[in-house]
């Protein structure tokens, strides 16, 4: 009888410990911040951004977060966030949210007004802030831009930024006329951004120019 009692107690203790140890407290949610460049000639590419948004809406799961923000002359502002949502944990609600999100971004992208300057750094800082607030396990900033930063004389962005544990992915990095003349400018620009985001603590840097291969966004290299 005593042996049975001891065995039962041991089993209960093991189960309790197992249950406590099994609970995974880490966040498995993903958070994505999409920066859409609306400056100068790149504003013409805005309709392509909808493809990226559609892909993200189709891929993200209930509980994940998504925000779409525009890159303007000074992008470090909540006002530049066009749409943001943390999808409900119930799949049916999440689908409804995704439909609303899509409608909102479509309206925005249909009426994009080109801006004079391009503040990618400000958008990155704003994006990092948003992503860190979500508390998601995987944080990704997608930059839909030619990656040519063009700041006005007043805006200050030449300081180290923090992108700890954030993946940074540049999508549809088009070549400028000057890049066509000297490709080193293009490669140098991408290399400079690579070094900058890695120095800022980003966990990954990736460039995806083919919009048919957007599935590489969530594939770790």
């Amino acid at each position, binding site marked *: 009888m005593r042996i049975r009692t001891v065995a039962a107690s041991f089993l209960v203790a093991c189960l309790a410990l197992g249950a406590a140890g*099994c*609970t*995974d407290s*880490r966040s*498995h*949610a993903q958070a994505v911040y999409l920066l859409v460049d609306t400056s100068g000639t790149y504003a013409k590419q805005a309709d392509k951004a909808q*493809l990226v948004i*559609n*892909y993200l*809406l*189709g891929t993200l*799961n*209930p*509980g*994940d977060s998504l925000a779409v923000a525009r890159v303007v002359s000074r992008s470090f502002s909540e006002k530049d966030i066009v749409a943001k949502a943390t999808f409900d*944990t*119930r*799949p*049916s609600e*999440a*689908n409804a949210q*995704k*439909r609303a999100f*899509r409608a909102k971004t479509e309206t925005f992208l249909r009426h994009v007004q080109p801006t004079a300057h391009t503040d990618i750094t400000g958008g990155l800082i704003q994006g990092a802030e948003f992503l860190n607030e979500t508390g998601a396990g995987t944080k990704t900033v997608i930059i839909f831009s030619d990656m040519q930063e063009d700041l006005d004389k007043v805006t200050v962005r030449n300081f180290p930024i923090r992108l700890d544990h954030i993946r940074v992915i540049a999508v549809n990095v088009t070549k400028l006329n000057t890049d066509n003349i000297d490709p080193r400018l293009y490669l140098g620009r991408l290399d400079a951004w690579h070094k900058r985001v890695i120095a800022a603590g980003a966990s990954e840097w990736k460039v995806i120019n083919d919009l048919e291969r957007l599935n590489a966004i969530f594939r770790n290299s």
Partner: protein
Amino acid sequence: MGNPTMWMIWPDNAALSILVLALIAMVALYAARAPMHALLRSASYTLGGPLRLAARWLSGVAAELRARNKAVLLAQGRRETGQRIEREFERLALLVQRDLQGYPTLQRKLLEEITRVEEDYKKCGEVPPPPPDWVDAVSAVAKIKTGGGEVVQKILVDIRQSLEGIHDKALAEYRRAYQNRHSILEGFMPYWRSLDKTMKQVDKNMTGIQEAAAAVDAQMATYKEIAARSDEAESQLTNSAFTQFAIAAIVMAVALGGAFVNFKLIALPMSEMVGASDYITATLRTSEVAALVIILVEASMGLFVMESLRITHLFPRISNLDDRMRRRMIWISLSLLFLLAGIESALALMRDMLIADKQALLQSLATTPAVVNEGWLGHIPTAGQMVLGFILPFALAFVAVPLESFIHSARTVGGALLVHLIYALGFALRIAANVVRQASRALVHAYDVLIVLPLLAEHTIHARKGGAAGDEGERVDPRESTLHPLS
């Protein structure tokens, strides 16, 4: 770094240095021969002893476990055979009740029919009346000579005519009598048929009872074998347990397949209830665990139903409940099972709706418009899922039967495998002990090879001493102390 020639006695002459050092070492080793041999022997005992001891202990444990397994197996076999005999007797009682209950009636009917047939037969035996005595008179008259007299001739003609009339009458009577007998015999036929049918029925009943009795005999023979604790009975029961184990494992694997399909049906809609973003482990969602719990609860309800119906006997407390309580339990378990099956069916429908919603969203996000599939064909998967969702919980309820077989046979199979494992371990330990002992002997011999020169010298001295002593007494073989170091 030290000087590499430091160890040399004569740094200029390495060979000589090595030789001298080897000789010194040999002498030193010879001096230490007895303690070194003792050390090696001791090491051998130290290592080999526990190994041998462990092997012996394991052998004892295996024998004890085997005896225990046998006792459990035989007890289990006796209980099962007893139950089987009980069931056979119940069957026999039913047969006797069903077939022999009407036996008195049958016997009465049989006797009545036999009596009737006998009576009829007797009636058939009634011969027609014999020809009248006038036959002799006719013969006598026939012998009368007419003598040509007209009177006599007329008388004779008259007599002939009357005789012919009487003969025809008698013949007709005779024929009628035979006709009656034939009709009586014809009347036998239904009785004969009835008798034949009745006898066949009796024969069939008796055969059924004989077969049932033979089955009881066979079970009784097995029971006697088990009661006698014979090895044959043990072997039979073990084989039976292995077969049961394999069959139960296969059926349970099939049931697991069903459970997996069930799980797939309700895992997605469960995320609608408990959320899709909670994880218990890195890859296991809370919604999946919830679905799994529902399936396990269904299986448990099925188990309770089977237990309450006394089909399985995993919980003696349930089977020992009084009939009223047991009936209540059946109804409660069945109601819960029915409710869960309904929930699952609804979840299956919800799954279909969620997938359709997701599909619609993806189609709206896609650049190319999707082909819309409307019509009754599109509803078949939905209906199929709902039906599956409703049926699978009831199908899973029957898992209790193979589960019981699996658990019962697993004790025997596991015990038998454990015994073999312990025997194998004991054998391995015994081999290891022998290897240690032989290695120790080899090392002792190798040690003697290293000090071969001093040993040869010892030989020679002993031989000379032995030669000198040979004249005085028994000669001593010096090899006894050198060539058999372990003796």
